């Protein structure tokens, strides 16, 4: 019973978070000074029909929240025919408006780009988790040695290293040896089959390494301190007394027990991870969501900005929920909470 309550609470919280994000998105893009929607409308680059479509889509001739007079007259449904309800309606239908720069539906644009960012993030984060956990565990085990010091310093240093700067350095170093921009060599089509995907893989190498190197630091520091705690538990002494080899103590006892907090940490840092992807995609022109956002900033393409932010926020919220559910499945103690 308690476990079900816990899950329901988590799902409810994720749901509320989503609503708040959607609401904030409306507020930011509609109420604040600057009023991007109006800016788009008045842009000379828009055709008449496009302007008209935006006008009806956003309900710009209607009140922002509700029409007080009509509400007073008892016309409840008519009174709530507002910009806000139009926004909610469009959102539920998956209509995020039209890109200012690409002249294309934002949702189509996002769908096309999202998986590229997912591939990048998964590769980079996975590599970082494996490296970070191994290095952190070794640091904790060799506490106080030169090796530990080197690992700790690496953790601190990579924390101080801006993702985009590391990307730029790698880009300069690897130029000529590895592809440094885009997703695939120009002219190569997906019909080429294996050749195409191998080429995409080559283009992935530098962005993935950049992400992995930067994220590793965080995981090293977390793993090092949590493994240190685990190693001072009494069951480690018991394992040692039983005559288990150091390797088995580390693998079977220390690693397993230090793993659980890592699951939460990986999910919690995902919001930060996404920020790294934006920087890396910008440096290596990887055509994912991050690069899309960067270009949207340059061109003041507000519908794209709004849509990408919403999609990223939803994904991170969903991933966190997933991690919570996973955690409760892995850790029997959650039941008791």
């Amino acid at each position, binding site marked *: 019973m308690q476990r079900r309550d816990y899950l329901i609470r988590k799902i409810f919280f994720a749901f509320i978070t989503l609503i708040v994000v959607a609401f904030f998105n409306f507020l930011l893009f509609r109420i604040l000074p600057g009023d991007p929607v109006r800016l788009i409308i008045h842009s000379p680059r828009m055709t008449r029909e496009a302007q008209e479509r935006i006008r009806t889509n956003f309900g710009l001739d209607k009140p922002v929240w509700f029409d007080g007079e009509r509400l007073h007259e008892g016309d409840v449904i008519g009174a709530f025919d507002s910009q806000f309800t139009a926004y909610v309606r469009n959102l539920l239908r998956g209509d995020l408006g039209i890109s200012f720069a690409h002249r294309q539906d934002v949702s189509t644009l996002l769908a096309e780009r999202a998986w590229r960012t997912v591939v990048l993030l998964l590769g980079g984060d996975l590599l970082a988790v494996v490296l970070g956990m191994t290095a952190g565990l070794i640091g904790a085990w060799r506490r106080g*040695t030169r090796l530990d010091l080197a690992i700790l310093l690496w953790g601190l240093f990579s*924390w101080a290293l801006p*993702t985009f700067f590391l990307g730029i350095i790698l880009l300069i170093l690897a130029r000529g040896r590895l592809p440094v921009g885009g997703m695939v060599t120009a002219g190569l089509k997906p019909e080429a089959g294996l050749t195409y995907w191998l080429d995409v893989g080559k283009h992935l190498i530098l962005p993935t390494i950049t992400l992995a190197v930067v994220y590793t630091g965080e995981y090293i520091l977390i793993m090092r301190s949590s493994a240190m705690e685990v190693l001072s538990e009494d069951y480690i002494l018991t394992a040692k007394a039983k005559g288990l080899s150091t390797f088995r103590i*580390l693998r079977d006892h220390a690693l397993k027990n230090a793993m659980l907090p890592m699951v939460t940490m990986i999910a919690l840092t995902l919001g930060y991870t996404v920020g790294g992807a934006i920087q890396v995609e910008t440096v290596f022109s990887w055509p994912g969501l991050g690069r899309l956002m960067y270009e949207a900033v340059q061109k003041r393409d507000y519908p794209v900005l709004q849509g990408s932010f919403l999609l990223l926020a939803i994904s991170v919220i969903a991933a966190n929920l997933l991690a919570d559910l996973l955690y409760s499945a892995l850790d029997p103690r959650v039941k008791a909470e």
Partner: protein
Amino acid sequence: MNAVKQFVRNPMGVVGAGMLLVVILIALLAPWLAPYDPQVRVQVTPDDILAPPDAEHLLGRDDAGKDVLSQLIYGARVSLIVGFTASFMSMFIGTTVGLVAGFYGGRVGNWLMRLVDFLMVIPDLPLMLVIIAVTGRGLTNIILVIGLLGWTYTARLVRSQVLSVKERQFVLRARSLGASAPRIILRHIFPQVVPLVIAQAVLDISVAILAESSLAFLGLGDPTLISWGMMLNFAFERAISRQAWWFLLPPGLAIVWVSLSLILIGNTLDQIVNPRLRTHHLFDARRMVALAVGVPPLAKADGAGE
């Protein structure tokens, strides 16, 4: 005083403090140190554009023919201003929220912590990007956004410390003597929280500096000021194909320098105020180096983690 002694004895902390001092001095003395005024328009010939370093321009020139070294020197100001003010804001909000949530608990505390959970889930950089893109990229906006989004970790830290302190003898005693809640918070609980908050605030400065430089690199820096992130944005957009390392490397290295200095200081402070386990069951004292890792040279190797 003991804390100061501990800090001075830690090589990492001393190195970090020295590195930070250099940056602070450069920022303060910028008008005297910079060979040129980076805000002044210059007459240039095509040869001046991205000219490599020479005796007159020690770090060469940028894509507009301006002196890179002077920009680098002035850039220290933006980083430090953003870092210190945003971190101060975060520290203030986080401490207040943490104290209230921890001391009073109940419904208010619960709601505050839900707010913290909420802000922790939302991806920072995309949110900052969206807000700055809409509200404008002035320095004040940048500081406000970074400061207003950066307090969640401090709030959690303070709350958990308050929860443990408020059940201790001296607080219970003050309570039974009839001290008011604000008095207990300020006189008895606050002093217990301050060291933790300061260590965290130092780390937050580096987080804020990195956030500002990322925003500037993505084209959202204050256009009226020169910052390291913006220099990198220009260098990346206009000079990377010419391999102009004198324009690309210095601003990036400067960011690494200042944030590393703060992380070294913050990490040392954290070790002092928040001492953790120093030994464990697989600990081997013979392999130990006394340097920096926070292990006093005479730590007993056979203790069950102190």
